[in-house]
């Protein structure tokens, strides 16, 4: 049974890239355009959330808190996409409940390595 990964990013090209890399590796990918959209899509089983931090409507930190507040999802791994200029964001993200992070820009292999790391 394929594991379901929810990718949240306001950039369509990043979503497309994440989707391509992950579906190629056998995961089922669900896309959301921002935090609000992502929370609305948490109606199905999701095994991992990969989220950008800077997004309109509801940003990544808000989304992480929202996911953690949902009893059904409070233990799932959440990865955030950050850039090198956002080291302080990593701490904020951890405090909000993120499992780990991926630094942009990243290559497909790096993405898969981190996904395997937290998803097994």
């Amino acid at each position, binding site marked *: *049974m*394929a*594991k*379901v990964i929810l990718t949240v990013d*306001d*950039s*369509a*090209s*990043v979503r*497309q*890239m994440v*989707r*391509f890399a992950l*579906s190629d590796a056998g995961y*089922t*990918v*669900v*896309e*959301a*355009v921002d935090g609000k*959209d992502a929370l609305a*899509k948490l109606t*199905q*089983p999701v*095994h991992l959330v990969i989220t950008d931090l*800077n*997004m*309109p409507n509801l940003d990544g930190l808000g989304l992480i808190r929202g996911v*953690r507040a949902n009893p*059904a*999802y*409070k*233990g*799932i*791994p*959440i990865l955030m*996409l950050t*850039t*090198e*200029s956002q080291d302080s964001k990593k*701490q904020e993200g*951890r405090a909000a*409940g*993120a*499992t*780990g*992070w*991926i*630094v*942009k*820009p*990243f290559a497909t*292999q*790096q993405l898969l*390595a*981190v996904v395997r*790391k*937290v*998803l*097994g």
Partner: protein
Amino acid sequence: MIDRFRQAYREEARELLTELESALLELDRNREDREVVGRAFRALHTIKGSGAMFGFDAIAGFAHNLETAFDRLRNGELTATSDLINLSLAAGDQIRVMLEQEDGGKAADPACSQQILAELQKLTHDATSSPADTHPVKDPAAAREAVGHTWRIHFRPAPGILLQGTNPGLLFRELRDLGELKMTLDTSAIPPLAEIEAEHCYLAWDMVLTTTAPEAAIRDVFIFVEDEGELRIEAAAAEEPDAATLPADGRRPGAPPVPGKVRETVATPATSSLRVSTSKIDELVNLVGQLVTVQARLSEVAGRHQDPDLTEVSEAVDRVTASLRDNSMNIRMLPLRATFERFRRLVHDLGADLHKEVNFTVEGADTELDKTVIDQLNDPLVHLIRNSMDHGIEPPEARLAAGKSPTGTIHLSARHAGASVLIQVTDDGKGLDVEAVRARATEKGLIEPGARLSESETLSLIFTAGFSTARELSGVSGRGVGMDVVRRNIEALRGSVEIASRPGAGLTATLRLPLTLAIIDGLLVRVGAEHFVLPLADSRECVELTRRDIQENHGKHLANVRGEIVPYIRLREYFGIAGQHPEREQIMVVDTDYSQYGFVVDQVLGDHQTVIKNLGRLYRNVQEVSGATLLGNGTVALILDPNRLVQSILQAASQRRGSAGRESRGYRLDSLPPKNKEDKTDGTQGSEQQV
């Protein structure tokens, strides 16, 4: 495959640049708005982040420096100055050039980028760094050493580790991938049962790992958890087989079972939007148009055969076709916002060029319009705004002298009106001088000296080719081609344009555009053997007109519809259709720009999904007919434009009153003021518009 991503990135980046531009211009008006700074930052952030990912390194590096500046702006470390905003606008343009270059356009000038960055550095007093790649995950295989080392690892995660989504078992599995792992479980911290928090992790592990991987690879395993909890990694002297091994089977002690794992996964990838090329949609709309025509034939055939089975199928097809039509039309509808926001930049730049201060306001930008219409709307609006900027809005000194605020205003608005959308460009400049227009038109030979024209007729002369009241050519407008182009473009869209002037107080140009170019809901009517279609959206009601009604009104072209007097037009007479009208005629009451008008027909046949076909170039001067459509039985029905019909009737009436000798345009009747039947026989009119 990567090319597809690069293409997606280019399209996305262009949108983001537009967003950046609109945020910058908004920031220019409201320097303190953090929300707008955030928008600009996010746009730059995505341009940079995605750019680096898809190999647009030059763009990513360039955007990085801008992003840094906006991050500081966002944190209040910098303030938005007009220099910074202008520089950022230039930088946005530079990124656009770099994108085009990647797309095969002309090469971007690296010196230009350098100059922008140097300016930026000066403005921000900051040694901006170049983007550095720091990847948290490194390939463990890359730096593997030849000789194995033994490491002692003590790991006591923070109690909340499970709630952060980390599965310690996976970490151990990763360690085992590095080499031989022996583990001892430390359960000493588990509290008495009553105090146990079910979701906390109270365990600690002591491990001995023998591996050829360097220490960094081991640290990488714990990269997400090393800051919290305890983690010690030490090189051990030799084999220390004192540790009781624990099967590191990946099961999380004390963890609740992960919900969802036991349930069946539904493989429904949900996308919120999809990019489709316009040609595909055009093809779809074209096919839907054909389907609508075929469906009309089916209805017609079903109506003739009176077969209940056939009728049922025909009605079902009818319903599906109608919703298919609405849906496919809806795909093409786009809000005007993107188009409108683009003009903010135009006004900003022109204002700087012309040394005029202009405030640009937008209303109704969410109004949706067919994409084809929007695409062709850009040029006319550019012309209208340029005209307002150049001729309308006065320089600040002149405005002050006229008792106005030194800052002018250009207001762009859109709203729905029936089956049309009205777009207005309003300025508060000096307006148009009707007398000057009249004099100029006479001088250019466009009208005869002494011709009597109403104000709106006079103003509409500025849309004639070769007309311009500005004597000197400015860089912005005044070549006398702009307004001519405006009218031609708008009329090509089956729309119309009007000018209203308030001398000294400004000018309003109103564009009336059809919602869609392809299919409308129409009302099919019959006069003699001819069929016509009236737009359903403007139709109000349908009443009967008997001979008695006509007699009671003494033949005047006025009908009494529930106490309201409605002027009417007989289509039979207007189009010169032969034959006697029946005993009972019907009036379609239609909302027009002027008032409610009635159109008298022999019979109202019912609603008709009308696929609009152009009449072709030969008939482009026929104002009253906006197109033609095919009926189910293959005959052609003309689509009438009620506004133009009424307009030409009123014009004919005023012209006949004004210059009796002038050739009028071929009407068999007029309706205001009501005239007697005998008057209609006067010989001044030909009939150029017979069908």
